[in-house]
């Protein structure tokens, strides 16, 4: 329903203003009915029943220094609309962005409202006697949101599922995460010093950064 401005003017007759005023009150009522507790409804009119965010493209610029929450369409991501937020300094933070493929060999991530990025990957098979150190480069595994800084990482042995044949013969540990695009780690035999593992095995990695 249309909303009319610039009326009533001083020279307007009431009969001319009446339908515009009627239209405006109807438009206000319809406007409030989207997402808000409606006029005259039970509860507290004006409060939010929910907040619906149309995906924006391009992104709004926050110049008032306040927190802002909004949705953004990102054409290059499998899920095209996410909730983002600015902090008061005008810096962009992700809020609900994620890539949860559930597939082996794919970099998964979730982005928390704080902007912290949790990323993980599972590789089901790794040849025995793998060269040390091993470098996993996230971009080689479909990473959609690269770290700018990588704070922490853990590498853990994993059975070569779904066919668990061998007892896990590896120990793994991180050696370097200073490059945010990769994790460097060692794989050794679990019970022999400075020796490559005998049997194939897998590993899973969890990393934290921004």
């Amino acid at each position: 329903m249309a909303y009319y401005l610039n009326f009533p003017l001083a020279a307007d007759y009431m009969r001319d203003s009446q339908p515009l005023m009627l239209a405006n009150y109807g438009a206000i009522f319809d406007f409030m009915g989207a997402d808000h507790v409606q006029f005259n409804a039970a509860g507290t009119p004006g409060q939010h029943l929910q907040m619906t965010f149309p995906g924006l493209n391009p992104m709004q610029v926050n110049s008032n220094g306040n927190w802002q929450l909004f949705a953004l369409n990102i054409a290059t991501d499998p899920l095209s609309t996410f909730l983002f937020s600015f902090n008061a300094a005008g810096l962009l933070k992700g809020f609900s962005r994620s890539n949860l493929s559930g597939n082996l060999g794919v970099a998964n991530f979730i982005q928390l409202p704080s902007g912290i990025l949790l990323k993980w990957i599972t590789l089901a098979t790794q040849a025995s006697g793998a060269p040390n150190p091993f470098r996993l480069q996230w971009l080689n595994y479909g990473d959609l949101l690269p770290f700018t800084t990588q704070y922490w990482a853990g590498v853990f042995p994993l059975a070569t599922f779904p066919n668990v044949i061998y007892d896990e013969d590896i120990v793994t540990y991180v050696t370097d995460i200073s490059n945010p695009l990769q994790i460097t780690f060692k794989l050794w035999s679990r019970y022999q010093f400075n020796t490559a593992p005998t049997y194939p095995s897998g590993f899973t990695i969890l990393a934290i950064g921004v």
Partner: protein
Amino acid sequence: MAYLSTIPQATDAKNVSQAQILENFSQIYTVFGVDHAIFDSPLGQGYHQQATFPVNAAGNPGAGFMRLYANTGVTGNPELWLRNGTAGTNYQITSASKNSTGWTMTPAGILIKWGSATTAGTGAGQPQTFTWPTAGTDLAFSTQYWALVQIGADPALPNKDVNAIAYVTNVANPAIVQYNVWRRNLFSTSGTNQNPFSVWILAFGTP
């Protein structure tokens, strides 16, 4: 002119009310246009293009309500907070310490902490203790539910094999994580040539 909520009165002359009504409709358009898709917008009038939160110490909305608002966090910066009026909880959901030893809050109220340290060596002073930082801008656990610890290479000697394993022994004290470090290929035995090396710790709890 400001928005007037008490016009027109029964005794007001039309030439007085006209200007006031004109102004009120203009004010409604301007105010509704803040954060919302405006009247007749193709995005859907009344929907939120964004939600902007000036900092304020919002109160408890009461049982059955959730409230989202901005206020100063433990970080010292304006953060987004989430109140659950039924549970009586109040979480600063965007707060984090973005460092190699750091933490992040989550909307569920779970606090995730991570860190690393250099350990003295296998068998040395078991159990060993990792203490979470307690700077004024850090959020402490009130309860620590879970932790893991993993050995890492000596940062100064990344190519040297690390002959050690580590495992958590106690998370009951929310201020620390206790763990043992032993030689990797011999049961309950100190190592021979690895010290120091690093330990990497991850923990979940509530603030």
